[in-house]
């Protein structure tokens, strides 16, 4: 057994499921649809990667869907978002078309970036998606810069940035936390704490027990939540967004979660046990939400219909992407510089 401290998602400090108001059932149902859509897209991508159709680094967020879907409903379309290489879920949750997403990961002409960016560089400014990033931590000051831009322009937009537990000790985080707090920037720092930084349990490299307490040293408001409970995520992000919009500055949110798949396609996963993963399956976002819906009177059949619809839709998207042409060779030389 590796030395990781596996924390049950429910055992979090600041906010528990009981303390947030319930969302309308139809909203929850939509959230379920979106979460399941993300799951299916990512499972499909994993399959494609394992069959050799995707090169490079392909990171799925299987198990992280709660943070993305809870966030998307709580923010405006204009609000800026940056995230990591593990960013498919945020983009899909904010409305990115699965067809263009999968095509991009496959490096095809119909990808949102003509196949140039791929899995680690999801982006679509029209949805406020301002870029996933392959460099740990790099997207964080960029989001702060977007928040700064909003503040200078006074246009009421806020920014949210997603990063992992392992990113916390990248120096630029410290620099950004300080400036964001000092300048009271309208930004939400969302840490998806899945307890692992690649193959290393965060407990092995962090001197701090609870990361969400660390940022309080800057005077920043900070909460730890169950990141697998979409209602909790929704309400926490919403409140943080309201504070940010009101000029009350940044909030740090640590959502405890767990990645059910490997760090990336091809991960040997020698660093954790089957039992650990199995245990976590009981707390994962789709299960948590499904149980809620059943509790609140939605039938298993309704959910099944949703899943079947999504299955068909994602199958079609994969089909579309695989049939998308390769980009023109000439594309290799374009976009080095913007022309105007």
């Amino acid at each position, binding site marked *: 057994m590796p030395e990781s401290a596996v924390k049950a998602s429910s055992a979090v400090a600041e906010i528990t499921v009981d303390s947030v108001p319930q969302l309308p059932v139809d909203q929850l149902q939509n959230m379920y649809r979106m979460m399941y859509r993300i799951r299916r897209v990512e499972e499909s991508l994993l399959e494609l990667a394992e069959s050799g159709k995707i090169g490079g680094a392909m990171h799925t967020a299987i198990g992280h869907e709660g943070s993305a879907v809870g966030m998307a409903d709580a923010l405006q379309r204009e609000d800026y978002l940056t995230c990591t290489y593990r960013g498919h879920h945020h983009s899909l949750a904010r409305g990115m078309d699965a067809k263009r997403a999968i095509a991009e990961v496959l490096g095809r002409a119909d990808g949102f970036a*003509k196949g140039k960016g791929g899995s680690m560089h999801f982006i679509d400014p029209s949805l406020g998606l301002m*870029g996933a990033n392959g460099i740990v931590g*790099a997207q964080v000051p960029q989001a702060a*810069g*977007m928040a700064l831009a909003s503040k200078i322009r006074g246009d009421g937009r806020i920014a949210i940035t997603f990063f992992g537990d392992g990113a916390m000790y990248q120096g630029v985080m410290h620099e950004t936390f*300080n400036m964001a707090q000092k300048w009271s920037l309208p930004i939400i720092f969302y840490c998806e704490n899945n307890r692992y930084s690649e193959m290393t349990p965060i407990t092995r490299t962090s001197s701090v027990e609870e990361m969400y307490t660390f940022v309080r040293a800057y005077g920043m408001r900070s909460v730890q939540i169950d990141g697998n409970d979409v209602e909790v995520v929704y309400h926490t992000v919403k409140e943080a967004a309201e504070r940010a919009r009101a000029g009350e500055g940044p909030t740090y949110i640590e959502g405890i979660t767990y990645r059910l798949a490997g760090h990336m396609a091809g991960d040997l996963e020698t660093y954790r046990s089957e039992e650990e993963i199995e245990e976590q399956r009981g707390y994962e976002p789709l299960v948590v939400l499904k149980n809620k819906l059943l509790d609140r009177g939605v039938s298993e059949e309704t959910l099944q219909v949703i899943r079947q619809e999504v299955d068909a839709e994602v199958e079609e998207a994969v089909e579309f992407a695989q049939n998308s042409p390769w980009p023109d060779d000439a594309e290799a030389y374009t*976009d*080095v510089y913007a022309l105007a």
Partner: protein
Amino acid sequence: MRKTTYIQAINEALREEMRDDESVFMIGEDIGHYGGLFRVTRKLMDEFGPNRVIDTPISEQGFMGMAVGAAMTGMRPIVELMYMDFFLVCADQIFNQGAKMNYMTGGVVNVPMVIRGQHGGGKRYGSQHSQCVESTFAQFPGIKVVVPATPYDAKGLLISAVRDPNPVLFLEHKMLYFTRGEMPDADEPYTVPIGVADVKREGSDMTLATFSYCLLQALEAAEELEAEHGISVEVVDLRSIVPLDMETIYASVAKTGRLLAVHESQSNCGIGAEIVARIYEEAPHLLTAPARRLGMAPASIPVSGPLEEVLLPWKKNIKAAVLETMRTPTFA
């Protein structure tokens, strides 16, 4: 025609662009209240306030990243690095982020920002405060590199840099700051386009391509060489090295047949080597003798004044390199 210093030229360009375009803002260390360690941003905070002239903590990767992010939303940040050597603490945001963004997003998001500040030797600042950086930036496509030598070019090119849709590195050599030059009246707007070289001295025996402070040194060297050796050197001021205006170089070499490229960044893998390689790729027939380059010698800059002088590609070394270039037998 009035005369201004190089510092004042930059200060004017900053002020005018800030006035004209609300999306322009400045960020850096000691640039606001103090007006910049080298006083380049003097009094700009008085006019534009702390929301647009932002004093930062010593967090270069952080504020460079914020500038990249702000630029991605359409703002036009101007970042001051106090000494260009500090680009090494924020290199990720410059190269992996700013420079690559337009390409890796398939052109969906561009990054209109300027990084400016002073670099260069000659003032005994030593290894960590003297390095010329233009050739390193030239290795990362996606960022333009501007290297003006005169107040006129500095103002005109900085305005172009601010308006450019790409990241632009704007390099001020510390030896240029108090040099003076002719300028149009303050209310006469002008720009200098990025990527166009300028022949600063005509000559017939060889072409010397250079920029920034080396240009002033080359012009002095050219005068002395003419007087002492009767060698007529044409001096081409590249003004930017990315993009690189090879056409103007070729036009000059077509006349002279010989080429020497001079720059203060490292000789090894420097822009001089690039110019030599480029002419052999594109126009070898113009040359009547081997093209050469002179860069900073393979050492870092020492504090001791005499040692610094030995290494820098300035007048004395330029004269020697010109004589060497003239000595090499022609191919024919």
